[in-house]
């Protein structure tokens, strides 16, 4: 599946499968989460303020544009997160779901 990023080198690495918005995505060991997501997708998230899709910017942990979410509700800065097997990522902000603790 075509992604925004184009792999030019280092393609002979073991594969890792993660899930993005419920669907399996193939990436390579050593990828950052950002490269895994943009290797087979075009965007990371949608801007909160209506100006459209975002796909990161600085790749060095400074711009804070590339935050994505885990299915459990946590959030990860994709450019500075090492890809790990079994990651379950959501590219849209989880609706606030508050547990009933009574």
């Amino acid at each position, binding site marked *: 599946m075509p992604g925004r990023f184009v792999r030019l080198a280092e393609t002979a690495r073991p594969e890792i499968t993660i899930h993005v918005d419920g669907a399996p995505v193939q990436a390579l060991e050593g990828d950052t989460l950002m490269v895994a997501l943009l290797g087979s997708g075009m965007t990371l998230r949608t801007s909160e303020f209506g100006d459209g899709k975002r796909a990161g910017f600085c790749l060095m942990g400074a711009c804070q544009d590339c935050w994505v979410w885990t299915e459990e509700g946590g959030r990860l800065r994709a450019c500075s997160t090492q890809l790990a097997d079994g990651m379950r990522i959501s590219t849209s902000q989880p*609706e606030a779901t508050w547990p*009933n603790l*009574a």
Partner: protein
Amino acid sequence: MSRAEHASDVVIVGGGLMGTSTALFLRQRGVSVTLLETDLIGRQASGTNFGNVRRQGRPISQLPLANRAIEIWRKSKELLGSDIEYLQSGHIRVCYRERPELQGQMEDYADEARHTGLDLEMLTGNALRARFPFFGPDVLAGSYSAMDGHANPRLVAPAFARAAQRLGAAIRENTRIVNAEKIGEDFHVTAEDGRVFRAPVLLITAGAWGNALSAQFGEPVPIVARGPNMSVTEPVPYAIAPAVGVMTPLEEETVYFRQVARGNIVLGGSTRGPSYPGDYRSYVLPQNTLSQLKQIRRLAPALANLNIIRVWSGIEGYMPDSLPVMGPSAAQSGLFYAFGFSGSGFQIGPGVGETMAELIGSGATDIPIGGYSIARFAGA
């Protein structure tokens, strides 16, 4: 005379919410006003506080003032000609399981408050969690005030100042006052650059710096400067309507949060850092941020998923009895005060302005403010 003199009916020293709202209401009464501010309008307590627009929890005797204020909040957009992000989305304060007596105190307060027109709803157990599922398991009970809410403090005092200015008030920023005295019929207020402002009436709304001026008239007060402990999260989908707070005797546990329409959640409270009124700076010490976040996790565990992106503080003036200095001077005719609101001035602020304008303009007010007289500190 070599110094330039500026004359008006009233000089106000202090450009926070109290001063700017009084300036607006005085102008509505046709009274000429000069407002003097050391720095920029609304930069300290008025601009850096949590933003709670709540009547719930105030001393019962303060509710008439709070009720007066809420009417102004409700029409603030029209009054000020700008949106200060006031949301009447409710306020809930809760207590933890280890202090069940606080639930009784909340119920007693609710009974008393009902007589002043403030309707509070007590919630516990399943009803509390069905309504507000984000509360952590340690929360025992809550008192919900549907008609309370919150607003954006950064915008409020500047909006009042611009509205007052449009009606003809003279607002002078970057004007630090070095001397104030009464000469004959008029107060003479001198700025650092030598400008002198003259008026038969002087109102001190100088917040944590109020004592510096009241002392010049023989009325020193034991005011203490403290900085609020504030943080804010990244924007998240809007889901939490009411402002939320903890009722507890412990400072470190006293935290609160509110979600703004854009989605960020403002967090406030817990232990506080040092405040330096001489330098116009307060600091949020990192240990206070950690203490706050720990308490927030207890109050609403789901917030632990979020990040904070910024902290800030400001300078608030606190009186030993947590009540403001408000009303006429006990020593000097024509001199009035409204400062030292002890971290609870935001909601009542517009009401304070309207009341002080009434007091100055007509000589009297029906709002009970006798308990805030500066005379209570005489001889202290």
